[in-house]
């Protein structure tokens, strides 16, 4: 069972209190975007085996969105961080590099 600590209210929330929001830090291109760009936004997800960044919502709790970094293979949670950011905090990236030396690093 996945337990993520919501950075908005501080509760260590069970997976069943949360709603998944898919891959984090993806770019939705603007109104003039091409079909290919929109297709990429909708369908072309990274889906890695290993380090992954996701969006979650504390649906049954405070109701707010946040980000989580975890390993999709081991379910180890590296950390959670606020929704209002375009990339994972530097300290969290450093922690993940330390735990997963072969990680290719954060990619937009």
């Amino acid at each position, binding site marked *: 069972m996945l337990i993520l600590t919501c950075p908005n*209210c501080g509760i260590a929330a069970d997976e069943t209190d949360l709603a998944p929001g898919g891959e984090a830090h993806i770019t939705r291109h603007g109104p003039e975007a091409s079909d290919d760009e929109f297709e990429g936004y909708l369908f072309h997800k990274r889906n890695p085996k290993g380090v992954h960044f996701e969006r979650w919502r504390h649906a049954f709790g405070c109701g707010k969105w946040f980000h989580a970094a975890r390993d999709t293979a081991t379910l180890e949670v590296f950390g959670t961080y606020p929704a209002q950011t375009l990339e994972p905090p530097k300290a969290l990236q450093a922690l993940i590099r330390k735990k997963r030396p072969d990680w290719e690093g954060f990619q937009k």
Partner: protein
Amino acid sequence: MPEAVSSMAGAEFSGAVDIREDGLQGMVTLRGDLGDAKVAGAVKAAVGLAMPKARQIKKGKNGGVAWMSPDEVLLLCDHAGADALVAKLDKALVGVHHLAVNVSDARAMFTLTGTGVREVIAKGAPADLSPAGLPIGEIRRSRIGQIAAAFWLSEAETLHLVCFRSVGAHMFRWLENAAAADTLPGVL
């Protein structure tokens, strides 16, 4: 004007713990920037209490206030006084981005008393119900079975629970079942 009736009209149950539907309870949702001094001032003027910290619930002589999310508090007051409280908040917050709504009749509220109140809720909520996980004076929003609920303890053996009125009857039946006599072996 039709007479107001609460979700379960004050129904009671006695089993492993005692359960009571609280009857008419005034509740006002206030959303806004909780860090704004004007918002805090409006709450203070409305119920006489300072803005709660994250997950905190406070009770006073003139009502209560509970932290619901980073931009939302729930004010507790007399059922008859809820509309006046909304008007008071709106007046105090002219020009300040906010939303105040009387949600009294959209909610159901229950009180559980007895030694095993934490255990009864723990049967259906994926929450840490231990005294360390949910200290007295802290409110937890989670779910009971399949339905959203918020609950807190005001004393060691007194637990309060709020849910949507539309599922109030279901909640009462769920609680009755979870609190059936002789179903808390480690406690009673």
